[in-house]
């Protein structure tokens, strides 16, 4: 990792883009180029803006430049026995933390520990007036002003360029094991919800259509007691969680469109063509299907949630779940308030902005 502050150069590039009314495509390593809608514009490359600015293990906080490789950050945290609680997927060797946060990606631990946005404490951004602004900070509790740093998480870079990000870190669990047991889809949903209602050290769940996998994390005696209570067969290792996280698991290696359905954790099984798997205690359903997008979206809505065309399919059409009219107005107003000339990733999230 070559630590360098590249924020001034980025600010100048944004200034030029504003002056020329020329949209930019904010890019790190390009590992998440598959995600979101296709967008036009000159590349604004943040990957040179690298390095860890501050890391205080005792404070459980790290501040990094957005172009820092996720792998580098994970290594630094691991040295101190810590990690990012939301266990983000990388989807590429050189994935940056900036891209991870802009996409708002969280991994297997999300239902148990929280999401990317839950662990963001502060952020510096360049807005569409080319101003470098700081929001939040490095402390756990901070209610001065609106929570703009969390607003950036999952905004797909449409509101500003992420420059520096402060996040809460957590200690790595002392031990981890994976349990597995055969069951049906509906049994998996019920079991996942039931276990989440009991104080057990469950840190991740997955149902592949055949087996329910449960990961336990914590102190050795707690894991032992949890294993006794939950039952099932102990897997040889914990590799499955990385495979699910990075979509290298067999389920994801298919050539049809991949949908990501975010549903209430107790939503029952729904009938759609294709294959499904379940994560996040029932709250996340992956669907590999060539079903019509409107069919998938209405099924998600009927179940009380929403659907994202995660990979494949038509990247020029609607990829994210449509907003209601009232929400669309607020989104457009917010977009204008951060980026009045509409230069950041136009159309990457929704066609209208």
């Amino acid at each position, binding site marked *: 990792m070559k630590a360098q502050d590249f924020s001034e150069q980025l600010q100048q590039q944004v200034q030029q883009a504003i002056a020329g009314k020329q949209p930019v495509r904010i890019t790190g390593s390009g590992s998440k180029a598959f995600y979101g809608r296709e967008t036009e514009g000159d590349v604004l490359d943040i990957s040179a803006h690298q390095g860890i600015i501050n890391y205080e293990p*005792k404070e459980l906080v790290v501040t990094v430049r957005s172009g820092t490789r996720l792998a580098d950050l994970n290594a630094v945290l691991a040295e101190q026995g810590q990690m990012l609680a939301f266990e983000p997927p990388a989807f590429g060797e050189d994935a940056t933390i900036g891209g991870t946060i802009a996409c708002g990606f969280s991994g297997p631990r999300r239902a148990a520990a929280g999401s990317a946005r839950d662990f963001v404490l502060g952020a510096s951004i360049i807005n569409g007036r080319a101003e470098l602004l700081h929001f939040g900070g490095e402390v*756990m*509790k901070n209610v001065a002003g*609106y929570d703009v740093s969390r607003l950036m998480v999952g905004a797909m870079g449409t509101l500003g360029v992420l420059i520096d990000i402060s996040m809460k870190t957590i200690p790595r669990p002392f031990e981890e094991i994976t349990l597995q047991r055969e069951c049906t889809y509906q049994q998996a949903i019920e079991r996942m919800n039931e276990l989440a209602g009991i104080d057990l050290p469950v840190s991740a769940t997955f149902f592949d259509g055949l087996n329910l996998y449960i990961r336990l994390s914590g102190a050795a005696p*707690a894991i032992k007691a949890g294993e006794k209570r939950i039952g099932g067969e102990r897997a040889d290792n914990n590799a499955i969680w990385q495979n699910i996280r990075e979509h290298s698991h067999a389920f994801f290696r298919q050539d049809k469109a991949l949908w990501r359905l975010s549903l209430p954790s107790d939503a029952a099984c729904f009938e759609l063509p294709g294959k499904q798997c379940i994560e996040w205690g029932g709250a996340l359903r992956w669907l590999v299907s060539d079903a019509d997008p409107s069919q998938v979206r209405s099924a998600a809505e009927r179940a009380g949630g929403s659907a994202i065309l995660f990979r494949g399919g038509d990247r020029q059409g609607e990829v994210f779940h449509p907003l209601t009219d009232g929400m669309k107005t607020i989104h457009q107003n917010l977009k204008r308030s951060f980026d009045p000339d509409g230069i950041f990733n136009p159309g990457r999230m929704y066609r209208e902005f």
Partner: protein
Amino acid sequence: MDTKNLINRLAEFLPAQSIIHEQEALRPYECDGLPAYRQLPLLAVLPGTIEQVQQVMRVCHEMRVPVVARGAATGLSGGALPLGDGVLLGLSKFNRIIEINKQARTARVQPGVRNLAISEAAKKYGLYYAPDPSSQIACTIGGNVAENSGGVHCLKYGLTVHNVMEVKVITPQGELLTIGGAALDTPGFDLLALMNGSEGMLGIVVEALVKLLPIPARAQVLMAAFDDVEKAADSVGTIIAEGIIPAGLEMMDSLAIQAAEDFVKAGYPVDAKAILLCELDGTNEEVSVQIRQVRELLKASGATDVRTARDEEERQLFWKGRKAAFPAVGRMSPDYYCMDGTVPRSRLSEVLTGISKLSEVYDLPVANVFHAGDGNLHPLILYNANNPGELKRAEDFGAEILQLSVKVGGTITGEHGVGYEKVHQMCVQFSEPELEQFRAVKKAFDPQLMLNPGKAIPQPRSCSEHKTIGGHQH
């Protein structure tokens, strides 16, 4: 403002007893939990349905009357301080728990439901609502969302923003919006993050869906006494460095210990310079391991005595002393002024030394109570408002504490909000372009600035004016 006309318009859909306009009847609404600031509203309304809130907002919007929302008014920053030319919108009638979903572990509640009432109702399912501000007996969930309230357990379980899944809000134009949902992710920007802590300036919360957690199988609290505040502060980092995240980690200094002990007889060691309450929760096995570890760590950090609560009763008693610390200090002094800065934990002892020096300069005693786990300080400045100039002195003292918090990399408010009280200190923490971005966010929701105007975000130019006046302005 044609008050009569406004009342007539509101009376078209609100019963007469829900519109309060006589001065004496308005008196209870003149302040929130920060009684140093008082203002009678033009009138107060108490709608009972979501449709009525929408109608109130539409009428006020049309007539350009600003609106301030009010829950239980336990806020400590004057966020619910009424406006003399505005309507105060009380949500006390929205006091129903709509549904508890045992399987999905959620509670759908109206905004006027008390924080503690949610946990009480969820108890029979083995569940509870985690954020527990010290005012949890009285404060309501709508106000918790507005302030992004914390509590003594947020190091492990997060703030309100981490525990609320969805809010239904009424916009300044009277539209009903659903933000968030029963799923973990919802489409679009994370507006839920914006709503939490927005101090009633972006919308009126009329319903909330909150996350419930399983009641830990076991919770155990340790109380450690120290003969030195600095040692107590440093022990906190030592525990966390070992990979242990306590459910609660609270510290009190000697003045606060004495006050609390006099008030609730919690069994605190009154001769200690500081005490640390450390709660560990989780599975029985996990807690057993951690109790041993933490006890050793505290002793190694120089604790003069470490006690484990004998039983649940004593655990509750240890916490009662902490939760009653504010009123306990209130008994020692005619008035007190509670501050809320947060600092990086590593700077804690430096800031405490700074506060005790300022206490001498301003000649006002200060009791310190804090959420040591997350660096959130609550210095309580003791003063007597009847002594001429003492309120001003307390305010100036407080302003200096907040400046010190910002200087060491912290914030002016950890959980009480900016409100009316700290609006000028925002100029210390944020640059003008940052404040301008906040104003732009506000306008994205509320272009006419009808909701709680004048709170939380300083008006344009007010920072430079404030500087030229020099010092605290209230």
